[in-house]
């Protein structure tokens, strides 16, 4: 048998203090997570900019007041809300449809599920960039196709209103994000469905009950927790949406697709106003921590029982 440590290390009965095992990981988190978090809390109370090279100046809660009273910030928050409503309902609608189609067992089901999960795992940067090609307004395959059947291809990256009530550029972001994330919803719901007792599924088959009864009495009770879980995950991750927007539209045209995370990024790294940016991100963080708390209670509560 190979021994990775000296004999002394394996000495009989030598117990290790559990804190010693946690410490290294904790140190990394301390330096690169806890410390920056506290620091950024500090920054949010200063007027602070690297570019102007002036010394940071303590301004108290001014940054927070500025952010809360800023029409611009509220505009971005509302945009984010609209985006969330569209993206999440599309992702959940399609995800549910897919998982229902995948409910019954058939040969190759696992393979199909795997294929569906590919978009989820590849870099949003890569897929978004490719969607720029697909949705290219003049020569892209999507518009080529639309023109050949409908004679018209919309300007996918413009601020023109789409028939769905949001500008085309935002719609494009929603569609791309839906492409990426629908499999996530599908996957969680499918997992929830696999927790339905086999007996109950078979009973419903032998009884040959109607689909709507099957959905209500057999499927829904078992996927409820997964729906909640997926909703919380998707809500919090959608707040973070950055990569795809940055690549697809960079927030434009104008501020059409400038959602909250892109907005903070621009305040910080284009206007170099670190104070306002950290203040705003702290407000978001508070929401997220609150949600995480709810989530933890849900998950860990369920796990205990």
């Amino acid at each position, binding site marked *: 048998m190979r021994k990775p440590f000296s004999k002394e290390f394996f000495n009989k009965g*030598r117990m290790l203090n559990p804190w010693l095992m946690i410490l290294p990981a904790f140190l990394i988190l301390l330096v690169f997570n806890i410390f920056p978090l506290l620091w950024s809390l500090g920054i949010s109370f200063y007027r602070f900019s690297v570019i102007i090279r002036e010394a940071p100046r303590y301004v108290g809660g001014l940054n927070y007041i500025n952010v809360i009273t800023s029409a611009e910030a509220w505009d971005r928050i509302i945009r984010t809300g609209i985006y969330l409503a569209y993206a999440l309902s599309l992702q959940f609608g399609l995800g549910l449809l897919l998982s229902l189609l995948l409910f019954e067992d058939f040969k190759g089901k*696992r393979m199909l599920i795997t294929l569906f999960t590919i978009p*989820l795992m590849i*870099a949003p940067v890569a897929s978004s960039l490719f969607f720029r*090609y697909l949705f290219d307004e003049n020569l892209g395959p999507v518009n080529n196709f639309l023109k050949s059947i409908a004679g018209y291809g919309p300007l996918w990256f413009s601020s023109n209103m789409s028939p769905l009530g949001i500008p085309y550029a935002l719609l494009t972001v929603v569609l791309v994000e839906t492409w990426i994330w629908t499999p996530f919803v599908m996957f969680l719901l499918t997992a929830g469905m696999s927790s339905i007792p086999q007996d109950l599924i078979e009973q419903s088959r032998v009884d040959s009950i109607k689909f709507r009864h099957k959905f209500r009495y057999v499927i829904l009770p078992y996927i409820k927790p997964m729906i909640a879980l997926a909703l919380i995950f998707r809500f919090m991750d959608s707040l*973070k949406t950055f990569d795809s927007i940055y690549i697809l539209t960079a927030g434009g045209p104008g501020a059409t697709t400038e959602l909250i995370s892109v907005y903070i990024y621009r305040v910080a790294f284009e206007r170099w106003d670190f104070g306002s940016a950290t203040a705003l991100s702290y407000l978001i963080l508070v929401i997220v921590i609150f949600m995480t708390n709810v989530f933890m209670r849900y998950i860990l509560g369920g*796990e205990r029982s």
Partner: protein
Amino acid sequence: MRKRNQYTTPLVLYRVRKSLKFALLIALLAIYLIPIYGMFSLAFKPRAEIYSGLFELTRVTLENFEEAYRYGAYSAITNSIIVTVGGVAIALVLAVLASYAFSRFAVKGKNILMFYILSTRMMPPITLIIPIFIMFFNVGLKGTYLGLILVYAMMSLPLSIWMIKSFIDDIPKDIDQAALVDGHSTMFILFKIIIPMVIPGIAASAAFAAIMLWNEFLFALLLSGVDTKPTSVLLSSIRGERGFNWGRVAAIEVVYILPIIILVFWLQKYMLRGLTFGTVRR
């Protein structure tokens, strides 16, 4: 010809319904996979045929890959490998130790610590980026591999700890106790008994962390330098150019996502844990 009986009509109806459902599923899958297919076919298309239609592939050529190489894709991929492997390696070692302690010992404040670790998954990275940016700027870590590797280690630690812990939790504590009665030491139990049992789980956790880091964009954008820029940043920089070469982009993307696609097939079994951070097991 089979005799008509009570089953004939219902059977026909049953089969029609089933076929329709299957057709719809296949149609959706097709819509789903067309972009991926398009990416691959574009990468192998001659430059002149780029806008010729998604499904047409008259001649296969590698010229796009040559172009990509000249464009610097090779060094970007190398950079991606360095920071990903570096970040995952550090995180993995630390996570295995920590998750065993979390799983097996009554550490004071364990729940709070685990909660905090999970909450980092939910934190918008934008909250952290500003102080880290300033910190790296001042310490001179900006633009270095080490800087990005350390940040990446921090980023993948929570996923690794939660996921590996979920695997260790699945091992009955009786196994540890049996080893204790046999007379083995803590380190023997961890390295010779527990870890060998969760090797597949640890590998899967590492793979998920690697995918996360491989795909990471925001930190890479702000913290990498000209020479240390990973693939995601290279791809994003193409965005700013006018009338750029789509064949070349597709070629870089194919090289960039191919390893992930291969991993996805292996990771299927662990997908649920990976997606839910190990909080849901299957």
